[in-house]
């Protein structure tokens, strides 16, 4: 098995290997082989459509954590220009699990902030698997304040298993760092667009997840606790993650139907990792559209609308 593919992607992996092999055996454009390749590619497309047309929530959560899935810095490189990373919280340190800086989107200066995971073992460790510590959230808030001062729109990218549960993180006030972000983002006087691009893990995700428009990429997830965590607490059995993923409703489409996010952005066939260029192009277009709209809205109106949306979250009956 090959770590570029998930279990349920194995049929895709096998066909792709075959296509590669055929391409390899012929340097000359042999007509017959060309036809065969085309036939296999058509077959592969149908197969991918079939597999990806019926993903269970648990499978979606695998795609959301796919080792090849584009991360924040990939989107910044592909959809933005002139990124200047800005480091540190000015108090304790710099957190590589939460990155940010100034970039241009279609020539418009913006502040980009996002969780960052690592691709290989060394980088995974360096990025702490995308799990920020308090200094990460404090850096994010510092950058948001800077954006506010110059009325730069803030674009955040959510992709984390959760905030880091560690001894140092607790000592330095992980809860306070997240809580403060929630309160300050609710009243930050500049537009904020939140995009869940992979794993939206709990409070660690929400800590940069408050804004005027919240979107999710098609195969990303957003949840109050990981399916494994939920299963181990409520079912007393972490292997029942499949059931808890179903029960919690963690997929983009389900969450949009529940009215908890605003938009789902479709991914290329087979997921963002199958065609990161195409994904980044779509993503840029979507973001530009929202910035056009949000930067035209008077800021007081924007803040009032943001507030109304935040306090409207919840599902309850008034009772008698």
């Amino acid at each position: 098995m090959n770590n570029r593919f998930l279990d349920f992607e194995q049929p895709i992996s096998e066909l792709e290997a075959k296509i590669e092999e055929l391409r390899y055996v012929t340097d000359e454009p042999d007509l017959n082989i060309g036809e065969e390749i085309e036939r296999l590619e058509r077959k592969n497309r149908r197969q991918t459509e079939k597999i990806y047309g019926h993903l269970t929530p648990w499978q979606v959560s695998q795609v959301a954590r796919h080792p090849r899935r584009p991360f924040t810095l990939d989107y910044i490189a592909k959809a933005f220009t002139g990124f200047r990373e800005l480091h540190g919280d000015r108090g304790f340190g710099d957190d590589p699990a939460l990155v940010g800086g100034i970039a241009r989107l279609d020539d418009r200066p913006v502040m980009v902030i996002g969780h960052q995971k690592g691709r290989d073992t060394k980088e995974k460790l360096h990025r702490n698997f995308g799990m920020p510590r308090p200094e990460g959230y404090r850096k994010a808030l510092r950058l948001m304040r800077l954006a506010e001062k110059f009325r730069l729109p803030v674009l955040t990218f959510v992709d984390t298993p959760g905030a880091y549960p560690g001894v140092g993180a607790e000592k330095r006030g992980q809860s306070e760092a997240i809580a403060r972000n929630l309160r300050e983002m609710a009243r930050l006087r500049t537009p904020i667009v939140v995009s869940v691009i992979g794993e939206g893990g709990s409070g660690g995700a929400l800590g940069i997840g408050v804004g005027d428009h919240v979107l999710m990429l098609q195969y990303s997830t957003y949840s109050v606790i990981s399916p494994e965590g939920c299963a181990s607490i409520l079912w007393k059995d972490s292997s029942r993650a499949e059931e808890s993923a179903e029960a919690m409703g963690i997929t983009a489409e389900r969450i949009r139907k529940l009215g908890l996010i605003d938009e789902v952005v479709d991914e290329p066939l087979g997921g963002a990792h199958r065609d990161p260029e195409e994904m980044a192009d779509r993503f840029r277009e979507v973001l530009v559209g929202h910035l056009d709209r949000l930067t035209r809205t008077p800021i007081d109106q924007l803040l009032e609308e943001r507030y109304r949306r935040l306090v409207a979250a919840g599902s309850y009956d008034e009772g008698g």
Partner: protein
Amino acid sequence: MTWFQRIMPPKIKKKESNGGNIPEGLWAKCPDCQAILYRKDLERSLQVCPKCSHHHRLGARERLDGFLDEEPREELGVHLASNDPLRFRDAKKYRDRLSQAQKKTGEREALVVMRGSLHGQGVVASAFDFGFMGGSMGSVVGERFVRGVDRAVADGVPLVNFAASGGARMQEGLFSLLQMSKTSAALARLDEAGLAYLSVLTDPTMGGVTASLAMLGDVIVAEPGALIGFAGPRVIEQTVQETLPEGFQEAEFLQEHGVIDTIVDRREMRSALADLLDCLAPLPATG
């Protein structure tokens, strides 16, 4: 102490010993110093052991009863009820867990909010009930809290909250996560109105409640010995693969690390908070 109790890590011991409600009857045993206490004495001292000052857990209504003046009191958001938006079911149905918790505690939800007064000064006070599904925050808890904040802003009075919670309520999925941003946004409005918010952390205050409304107090107070944190000790132990330091995540440890402002004995709480609120009165309107 039996050999079995000796090998248990201190956190688990603590949990076992004060996890349940105090047993019925005339007498109660302090889980910390093992003293046999006359229940009436324990009630008089607000469930604090008169021998060793161990703070037993306190229900939400009992808490507010001991805190607010007897008159006036108006409970807010009483009739709000969860409607189980996900039709959630694990080993049990969420609806069944709710009605069980209601029977057990006599409360309809895990947060009780009241408009009342403290030493004659108007205040909105709320308290979590840990006995109600671990004091977990779902849609009703979030909405009741926000109604409390709205009322405080409307009446120009301060807000006091007593936290006791395991965190967000998993059975409401993302709805419960978003109560964190909801309650925090409301607290931004309270802040802008120049009104004080005192956040009191009691045993235990964890997860999504800590990482939102509980840590946003103008002054953050804790009860002695209360366990307070973002992640639970078990999760941290599994993540870092090492034994946790002595007293980790207890109020005293957190004060030492600058995470909370002050520790106040429950028997002094009422007068301490009244005094703080006296000093943190809203500024007169200018202009």
